[in-house]
């Protein structure tokens, strides 16, 4: 078990380390003036940050679900976009081939770096039930409240209850909790210490 947790943490750390490394390499690429390299690295950096949303969800495996399609899709459109741009344009170009009233390279920017990525928002909405369904939310909130019944945390919503239930300062269920179940409004305790884990 401990070995598995260490492996999981190592995988997550490597993913985050990759993002940090990309940030440093981007700074170096900018400093030495490698703009083509910088463009692809920037694309990779942006896509990698999307991947960060999944690193704690999948038990340490390199599994970006449910955002695999989003990461892959954005990666493809960014690479295609920059490849078209760099194949059609460089700083010395003064004559253009026009399509739909725009130079082809500029049209590639419009299509691949502006319009198609917006579809990523639609992708998010479509996979949302996988991360935001009632069962998933209830599991998170129930588990969090179970922990809070055992330990006291600063700004904790649930407070220990002698009956084993969740105390509620108002005595009524909150209509505005994500799960719709009851909450309480315990006072912040700067001294409070709770159970922690990695």
């Amino acid at each position, binding site marked *: 078990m401990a070995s598995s947790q260490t492996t999981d943490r190592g995988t997550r750390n490597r993913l985050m380390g990759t993002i940090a490394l990309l940030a440093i390499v981007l700074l170096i690429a900018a400093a030495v003036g490698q703009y083509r390299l910088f463009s692809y690295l920037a694309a990779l950096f942006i896509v990698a940050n999307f991947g960060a949303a999944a690193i704690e969800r999948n038990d340490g495996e390199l599994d970006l679900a449910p955002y695999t399609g989003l990461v892959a899709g954005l990666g493809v459109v960014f690479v295609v976009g920059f490849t078209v741009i760099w194949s059609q344009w460089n700083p010395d170009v003064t004559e253009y081939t026009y399509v739909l009233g725009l130079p082809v390279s500029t049209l590639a920017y419009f299509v691949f770096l502006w319009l198609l990525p917006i579809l990523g928002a639609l992708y998010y909405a479509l996979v949302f039930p996988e991360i935001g369904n009632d069962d998933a939310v209830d599991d998170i909130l129930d*588990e969090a409240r179970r922990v809070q019944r055992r330990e006291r945390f600063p700004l904790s919503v649930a407070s220990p209850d002698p009956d084993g239930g969740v105390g509620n300062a108002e005595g009524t269920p909150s209509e505005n909790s994500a799960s719709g179940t009851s909450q309480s409004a315990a006072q912040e305790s700067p001294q409070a210490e709770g159970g922690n884990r990695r």
Partner: protein
Amino acid sequence: MTPLPIPLQEIPVTDSPYVLLFGGVYLLIVLGIGVWGYLRTESTEDFLITGKSIGTWVLALTAFSVIQSGFGFVGGPELVYSFGTTALWIFFTAPLGFIITWVLLAKRMRLLADIRDVLTLADGMYVRYESAWVRGLTAVAVIVGVMAYLATNLAALQYVMRAIFGLSVMWGLLIGAFILLLYSMLGGMIAGVWTDFVQAITMIFGSVFVFAYALSFGGGMSSISHNLATADPAFISPFGAMGAPTATIFTALGWWILFSVGAAGQPHLVTKFYMSRNLKILRWGAPIAAATYAISSLLAFSTGLSMRAMVEAGSTAAPKSASIVGPVFVLNHTPGAVAGLILAALLAAIMSTSDSFLNIGAAAVSRDIPRALGRPIDDDKTELRVTQAALAGLTVASTLIVFYSQTLVGILGTIGWGFFAAAFFAIAALGLNWKGATKEGAIAAILGGLAVNLFYSAVPHIADTAGLSGVSDFIGSLYPFTESFPVGTVALLVAIALFVGVSLITQDRRTVPEDIAVLLEG
């Protein structure tokens, strides 16, 4: 998005009855919403996060509105007119920023508000890192950024009030600030999100009209492109004509990173997730915010390029200043009703963005700083009143800065989007998705991001103002990138590297609160 360009003095005072009508109606609506919000505000939670009451459309459009500030209507056309397509790497990138923000933070922050009693970004960072230092630094960074944005927005507000109502600049500032103060202090965030909603609707419709008129004015996209290419092929290239070609490419790509990834570090945007009625509300927020922003960005794109194309073709006179291209276009080349709608939208954009900043700034003063110092205000009613008083104080302070010191406004103007992105992206967006993040990493990221921003942006400006041009030249010589490469991007990348690096070094000694770990794994 970034602070408004200053000055806007040259926006002509219009005698169009439509402009007066739309501007007047907007202010009445705002005051009405303020009173309505007041009647619904009973607690600090109501005041700061609407009591978690807002639905899909209001959430999406308030997110749109706080990002599409007056800059999109004034600074946007100015940049496009001056440099061609370079500026599109700001406006056309913003929709991607919404997606990143939603993916990384929407669920995490909304559930965090159920698991812990968090009302501000600093609250959220405090419970994540269990550090009063992280909370205090977050609050200080919020206050500095808020003062900067407020000063630049109020500086713009005075000229927009003059253009619409024919007031003197001084009365434009005082009356505009008073109305902003009144509805913000009375109605809190409940009023804020609904005025954002009104602003968004106004902007979206106005942008569609203006886009059609601008394309028609320029003779269609093909004609616009050919006229621009004849004057300077770089204008219509993928990266524009901001300067030397290599520098321009790096500027554009730097903005691409900053305005996509950096969106998830904007406190006035990410705290909106606390406000949704429930988690399901978040599902369609990203598509709505991204699509509406994409539509509204057509205004800056079309007016800037169209005006420049026609000026280059000799078909119209060049405006006195590039900073007034947008307002001049709508006043001179669209019907009075459209011009009225757009100027009302500009007024709305400035006021609604200012309102959001006032809200988070006041919370930082009344809630975050006292709690970071171990002196929380325990009584909710007292905390609410102190928050309202802090809001009034911030408004008065910003008004006095604008009234007495253009120099200070200029210095504050160097602090903007990149400041927040560097300070908060790593600690919030990455920290709420990675259990390995530590408070040491968070502190290093905040301080590193602030230091880079202040050293390369604010200090040279201060030195120049003080007549110490040698100092600013020296600092410039230490900048290893092309001059126009955004400092905010550098700060953001440095902050991310520090955050991850320091966290990796220190994480063996640190753990995550168990209930927060449940959230991060979910």
